[in-house]
């Protein structure tokens, strides 16, 4: 465990080198927040609550969702597929390292970096510029834990796409398709409450909602029955474990087709 945490620290430090990037990401996110603010403002023009969500709750959900999106975008799929195509992956096999754990902890460092430079400033923008208060409660305390689980689940999807590079050269198409599916079905763009009821009940059975919907609900409606929070967390843990194990099995299968030119 300790040796992997060293990788987390390393990639966190690398993140510190680039200061210009986060600033522009933050500007981009600020514009996005503005667009979301006005968009939902005009949706809420004639009503105080829609689908049992107030304007404040919906805006908070969407706004934090955009920060979580940047947080989870660690380009693991690109990195893994690059290392496979270039044959760099073989060097890990000779080291006393578990590849999946190594990648997980490296990307955790990046995520922690964006948590500091993107997510926290975004929260400040939400409260100070858009004057939307963040409610506090039990859910607020559980949010970091839920976010960590969301990170592991999102990592599994990225890692899976990355390993597909053992079979195909195209990362752009696979990565884009994966991202679109997750964004559309997880509540990242629109709170799941707004989806038609039938679709909503299907989406709640899929793993995607545990990446955005679960942590975002903890933050936007933090004073629900603790029982609800516990069951949400259990669903996340189950998906995290299942997906982590499945991608691990998939890697062991896929690595058999690996042929690397000598040299």
């Amino acid at each position, binding site marked *: 465990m300790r040796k992997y945490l060293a990788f987390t620290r390393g990639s966190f430090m690398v993140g510190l080198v*680039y200061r*210009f*990037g986060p*600033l*522009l*990401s933050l*500007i*981009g996110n600020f*514009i*996005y927040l*503005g*667009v979301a603010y*006005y*968009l939902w*403002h*005009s*949706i809420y*023009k*004639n009503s105080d609550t*829609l*689908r049992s969500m107030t304007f404040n709750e919906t805006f908070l959900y969407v706004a934090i969702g955009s920060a979580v999106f940047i947080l989870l975008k660690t380009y693991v799929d690109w990195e893994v597929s690059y290392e496979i195509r270039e044959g760099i992956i073989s060097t890990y096999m000779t080291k006393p390292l578990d590849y999946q754990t190594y990648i997980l902890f490296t990307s955790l460092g990046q995520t922690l970096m964006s948590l500091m430079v993107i997510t926290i400033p975004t929260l400040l923008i939400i409260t100070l510029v858009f004057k939307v208060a963040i409610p506090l409660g039990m859910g607020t305390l559980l949010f970091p834990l839920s976010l960590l689980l969301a990170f592991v689940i999102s990592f599994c999807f990225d890692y899976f796409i990355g390993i597909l590079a053992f079979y*195909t*050269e*195209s990362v*752009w*198409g*696979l*990565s*884009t*398709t994966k991202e*679109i*599916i997750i*964004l*559309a079905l997880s509540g990242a*763009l*629109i709170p799941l409450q*707004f*989806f*038609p009821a039938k679709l909503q009940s299907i989406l709640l059975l899929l793993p995607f909602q545990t990446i955005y919907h679960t942590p975002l609900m903890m933050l936007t409606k933090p004073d629900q029955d603790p029982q609800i929070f516990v069951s949400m967390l259990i669903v996340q843990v189950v998906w995290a474990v299942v997906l982590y194990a499945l991608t691990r099995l998939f890697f062991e299968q896929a690595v058999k087709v690996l042929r690397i030119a000598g040299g």
Partner: protein
Amino acid sequence: MRSIGEYIRLYFIIEAQYIKARLQYRVDFIISSIGMFFSSLITLGVFWVIFDTVPDLAGWSLMEMAFIYAFYMIAISPMQIIFDHFWQLRFNLQQGNFLKYYFRPLNMMFYYTSEMFDLKGLTQLFVGTALLIYTASQLHVAWTFGRVGLLFITLFSAALVQISIVVLAACAAFWVLDSYPVLGLAWRLREFAPYPMSIFDGAFRFTFTYVLPIGFIAFYPSQIFLRPEEVSHLTYFSPVIGIGLFALTYWVWTKGVNSYTGTGS
């Protein structure tokens, strides 16, 4: 100086060779096209979910929003299909292989642009065109010769706006080492183009109209076809904005090209 006709002929020859070479990677083409197809539809999905809850958005119906979005998809396609090479400008500059573009008797922007033709972008163009035709017929847009002419002019200038924004951002690589964030931001801006500018007020509407004129990629020009009786006078400026912005971009590109000193090896 070569004539425009000569350049067009040359472009077709270069692209024909490029496409032949790309056809080796068929799986890549299919997967990328699927990715493109899904990413074209996501915003439409967002609209669909929103309109499941509310009947209109600032007075615009789902069908009208879909028309604006179709216009948008077509308008951003030339950037995707023809100008895709600019995504790699920063690598070419850093690695020094940009120098080769100085040694051909061709316009440098033309030569650089011609080296890539993004086939997957055609998916977006087709989806956009199909959606435009469908929504226009649902909305009973009366197509006269004049209107069709206007459609081409407005699409052309909207495409120039999108191209200019991204190419300008790519040109940051001439002066800034880590220029990807600039490009990423410029690319992200386009996502905000298909929303009615009338939902914004104050600083945001001003910015999207005059500073980062993404309103001209879809919303302002499509008003001509959706609400001809209440077209904002700004709409008629769209060709001026498109051509003006592209001229500025070309000027910045030329500055960058002239200031580039290579990598020294």
